[in-house]
């Protein structure tokens, strides 16, 4: 390493890789993330894809980005603002400029700022941000990346198009140099990726090296940065995205219950990748069924559960709206079922590619009649695994449909995950009804102490019985119009769900103080920002605590008592205050709220400011 570069240390860094959909920014970001993970940093990432399938090349609509936040401290969010922006073209710069730290570094590909690109990015005629001093507040490194890439590959027998496709490697190499990494890990990935295409492999490796060496040779680069390993729990880690977490959670739960997994679904953004993920794992005995619509999908899942599989269906808000009637039947049938709702911006078709938490009320109340259903919510990509497992466990142990809430932000976000060893995961106990020894008639709606009815699978001799959506007599399951029985059944179905609270962990404070001035009470994808803000404020001596609800119905038994340990409660939500309504109803408790309904996550800045306001008032 050459002498006139110095090395300085950083606690955390946020890098945004941005370019045209075709520029391979997702891959670049992914590879840099893998190397970062291995370097021992904690990290979180979030991609932002264009809303259109393929927006026109060079336009702002076509910009694809990948944001990485890593550091030597615990990292919970992809970061509010970027320290480094890689801009492969003018549109990428324009779209992301707003997200930069003051003084941030911009690595710009000059070749992406020619007249055509500038016009497509809707810059005024003759205006080039790289020239017109509009970026003076930043440290701009302009490189003719395309040109340099072509030069590096001059002697290779590849078309210009293929050569240009390597230019992301140049940037990757440069960044690996900048953060004081070695190339070997990335080299290895490339070897795997291009196993079958040796010439592309060498091309990419060359460009990667070219970018890396540029660091050494170019005056501009005087400093390299190191980020120490974070204090992460020892163990084996992998990266995981939210929907993959659900896939693994469902597969694991089914395996641990010894039941075949059935997944019935109809594609919808951002839930589709659960279907894709499960379809890949047929050797785990998972049966995926792409139905003609959401209604058929949930009905098929119920049919599978009726047949002794664990039936699961997945969709997003508009699809859930269609499944309401069938969920009601599942509540009547008292069969296990998991409904995954990967929430997106609503109402109606809304903002399909954006994130939101606005389906909580629908999850709790979106059915006719008194129709109680347990609801659980995942807090992060890795938490999707445990929450999905929990959803299946509750569905089976309590013979009930369960709603699992996630959202687009969790689904597409990724984070390192210290995944469990299968041996350490508890089994889920399943007991199918067996013929009565003494030949006494089978009672399909007889209940155990949890008010759970037996699961009697068609094919079992002697247990023939009929189920359906009409009110039924308790114990016998016969149709009943008896007034008293109806009230009894309505209350029994409610009590059955309430009693789940006896079989879930009590709510814990997940950061900061156990009691004090402010409780930040969240659910779902606000987990990261709540953690960050709480740890930060607690470190500054504020008596702040953070509790994050996985169980939204029923609530953990100790929730009210835990809440009352604090002078104020702040509920941040990416909706108009839905959990707030539930808390007010349940506990007659005035809670403060922070609501952002912009299809984007709440930032640390925003939540911190809100928390400080409240603390200030006290």
């Amino acid at each position, binding site marked *: 390493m050459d002498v006139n570069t110095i090395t300085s240390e950083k606690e955390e860094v946020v890098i945004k890789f941005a370019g045209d959909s075709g520029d391979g920014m997702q891959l670049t970001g992914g590879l840099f993330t893998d190397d970062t993970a291995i370097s021992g940093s904690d990290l979180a990432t979030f991609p932002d894809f264009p809303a259109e399938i393929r927006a026109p090349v060079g336009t702002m609509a076509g910009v694809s980005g990948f944001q990485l936040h890593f550091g030597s401290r615990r990292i919970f969010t992809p970061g509010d603002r970027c320290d480094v922006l890689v801009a492969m073209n003018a549109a990428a710069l324009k779209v992301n400029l707003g997200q930069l730290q003051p003084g941030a570094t911009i690595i710009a590909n000059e070749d992406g700022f020619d007249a055509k690109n500038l016009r497509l990015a809707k810059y005024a005629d003759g205006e080039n941000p790289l020239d017109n001093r509009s970026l003076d507040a930043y440290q701009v490194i302009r490189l003719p990346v395309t040109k340099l890439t072509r030069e590096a590959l001059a002697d290779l027998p590849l078309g210009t198009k293929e050569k240009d496709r390597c230019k992301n490697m140049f940037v990757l190499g440069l960044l690996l140099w900048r953060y004081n990494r070695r190339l070997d890990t990335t080299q290895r990935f490339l070897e795997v990726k291009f196993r079958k295409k040796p010439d592309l492999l060498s091309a990419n490796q060359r460009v990667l090296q070219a970018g890396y060496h540029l660091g050494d040779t170019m005056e501009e680069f005087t400093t390299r940065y190191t980020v120490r390993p974070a204090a992460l729990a020892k163990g084996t880690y992998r990266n995981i995205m939210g929907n993959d977490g659900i896939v693994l959670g469902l597969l694991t739960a089914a395996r641990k219950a010894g039941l075949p997994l059935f997944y019935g679904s109809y594609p919808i953004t951002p839930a589709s990748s659960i279907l894709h993920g499960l379809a890949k794992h047929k050797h785990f005995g998972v049966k995926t069924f792409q139905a003609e619509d959401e209604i058929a999908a949930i009905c098929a899942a119920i049919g599978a559960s009726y047949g002794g599989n664990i039936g699961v269906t997945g969709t997003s808000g508009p699809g859930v709206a269609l499944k309401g009637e069938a969920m009601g039947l599942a509540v009547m049938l008292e069969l296990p079922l998991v409904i995954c709702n990967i929430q997106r911006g609503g109402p109606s078709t809304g903002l399909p590619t954006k994130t939101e938490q606005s389906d909580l009320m629908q999850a709790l109340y979106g059915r006719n009649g008194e129709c109680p259903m347990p609801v659980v919510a995942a807090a992060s990509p890795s938490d999707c695994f445990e929450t999905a497992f929990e959803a299946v466990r509750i569905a089976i142990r309590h013979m009930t449909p369960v709603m699992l809430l996630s959202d687009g932000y969790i689904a597409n976000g990724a984070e390192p995950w210290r995944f469990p060893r299968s041996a350490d995961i508890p089994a889920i106990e399943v007991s199918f009804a067996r013929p009565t020894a003494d030949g006494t008639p089978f009672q399909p709606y007889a209940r155990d102490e949890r008010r759970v009815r037996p699961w009697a699978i068609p094919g079992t001799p002697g247990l*023939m019985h009929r189920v359906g959506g009409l009110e039924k007599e308790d114990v016998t399951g016969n149709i009943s119009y008896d007034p008293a029985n109806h009230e009894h059944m309505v209350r029994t179905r409610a009590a059955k769900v309430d009693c789940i609270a006896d079989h879930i962990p009590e709510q814990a404070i997940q950061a900061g103080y156990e009691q004090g001035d402010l409780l930040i009470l969240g659910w779902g994808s606000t987990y990261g920002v709540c953690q960050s803000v709480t740890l930060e404020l607690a470190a500054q001596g504020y008596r702040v605590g953070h509790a994050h609800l996985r169980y939204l119905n029923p609530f953990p038994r100790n929730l009210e008592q835990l809440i009352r340990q604090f002078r104020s409660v702040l509920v941040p939500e990416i909706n108009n205050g839905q959990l707030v309504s539930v808390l007010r109803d349940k506990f007659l408790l005035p809670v403060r709220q922070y609501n952002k309904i912009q299809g984007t996550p709440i930032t640390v800045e925003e939540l911190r400011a809100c928390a400080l306001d409240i603390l200030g008032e006290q």
Partner: protein
Amino acid sequence: MSVGNNSTDPSNGAYLLKAKDFATDQDVRWCPGCGDYSILKQVQTVLADLEKQPHETVFISGIGCSSRFPYYMETYGMHSIHGRAPGFASGLRIAQPNLQVWLITGDGDGLSIGGNHLLHLFRRNFNLNVILFNNQIYGLTKGQYSPTSEENKKTVSTPYGSIDHPVNPIALALGADATFVARSMDRDPKHLKEMLVRADSHHGTSFLEVYQNCNIFNDGAFEAFTEKDTKPENCLFLENGQPLVFGARRDKGIRLDGFQPVVVHMSDGAATTDDLWIHDESDLIKAQILSRFFDLPASEGGAGLPRPFGVFYRTERSCYEDMLSEQLRDASEQGGDGDLDALLAGSNTWEIH
């Protein structure tokens, strides 16, 4: 399951189930005189004749008078939600390919709200039997016209007469590539039983439309086909390999002039059975022509083509659940039985020490 006075299988002395062994203890709630009773009885009889096991048999229905059916069958049963029975049945077939699944639906349940599910069931060809009780009316909701009601039908919801062109269920099923398509009627127990047996024996989705009289809201809708004086003239009973003959004296037949089916009379020597169209269950095109024998019976001023009953069409095509099981088998042969730890680890891990 109440066991009546035993009759046993001579071969092995095993108890043989009787029709009534497939009846539940629930009072049947259909109106006295409803055609549903006959269908129930024939189904129970056929299951007994075929020596089906109650615990291996499942009846799944939607909502409607007809869909009350499962409550009266001493088998497994699900009275689901309106129009969605195909979804539940599909999931169950995938979960438990060894069960025998019967899907009970009505002209409203199956062709109005549930039409799409039925079509997708047909193309996927799950191995189960669909019995569509067609009474050309919404019975349970007290008499609104249905998708199969004739045009200009006056009902509570159409006091000025209906203006929807009716669905032709057989033509629709053929258009949707159903692999077994048949029609029968509540008032002809022998034929109905025969069709039920045929449906059961078909590997794939068997679609059996049954004309069923709703004596409360649409009484006599099928009189022309069911009453003994008009039946012979208006009904054409299809038999594979046999010429299309009908009439009280079996003296009428169907011949094809080009593509136009015409009624010919054999009594007046105008034709002999040799000139007649020979029914071929495997011929989709002919089945489609037969499905268009659909206008009013001659006795009610129709063009005079009789209404066909029997198996219009039958073909073999792989069933969805069989292909899926195969994929699962292949997958585990290749991928192994699924190593959970390998799955959890994924392709790329690292250690923190």
